[in-house]
């Protein structure tokens, strides 16, 4: 099956810093989503981005489908950004299920 690798596994930042999270995937996809799982366990949709670039406030994401990776940028980080960031992909073709990476645990210190 498809492999989804996220890096780094852990990231500790000072408030105000910028960061880049990476997601590599092993096959062609027609769905890629970034989620933030907050400390209470809620998975929150950040981006649906199978290709191209999107921005939403301090967050932006870029997916280069031909090179099989996606990047999530967080600028001017805040303590409320803490949590786990997951990348999830759906294979092109007949596969029906989202496959999640193992996540990046982000801690933003005040």
């Amino acid at each position, binding site marked *: 099956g498809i492999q*989804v690798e996220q890096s780094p596994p852990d990231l500790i930042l000072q408030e105000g810093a910028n960061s880049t999270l990476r997601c590599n995937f092993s096959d062609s996809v*027609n*769905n890629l*989503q970034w*989620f933030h799982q907050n400390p*209470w*366990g*809620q*998975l*929150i*949709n950040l981006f*649906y981005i*199978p290709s191209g670039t999107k921005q939403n406030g301090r967050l932006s994401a870029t997916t280069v489908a031909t090179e099989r990776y996606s990047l999530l940028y967080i600028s001017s980080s805040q303590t409320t950004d803490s949590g786990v960031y*997951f990348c*999830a992909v*759906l294979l092109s073709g007949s596969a*029906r*299920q*989202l496959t*999640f*990476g*193992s*996540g990046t645990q982000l801690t933003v210190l005040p």
Partner: protein
Amino acid sequence: EAGVAQSPRYKIIEKRQSVAFWCNPISGHATLYWYQQILGQGPKLLIQFQNNGVVDDSQLPKDRFSAERLKGVDSTLKIQPAKLEDSAVYLCASRRLGRHEQYFGPGTRLTVT
């Protein structure tokens, strides 16, 4: 619009007992998913419904897990009997037909002792 609703939020049971979780998807979302998320890992799909039919249950441990979505809206996931390794967060998600984005509920945290 209201999000995906799940209940209960927390459940503690002893091994060999039974437990059931409930999910109400976003209105108009025909596709519903149940995921299991073990601590430190990403969610793993258990079962996918479209309306009241099962699309994919290949990763559902059918000897102890069952799920239904009889009227194509609400869904229940049952574990009978529970094992220690079933301790996890059970997440429900829904998706509108023709769209790719899945939206997740708050989850049910199950502890089996």
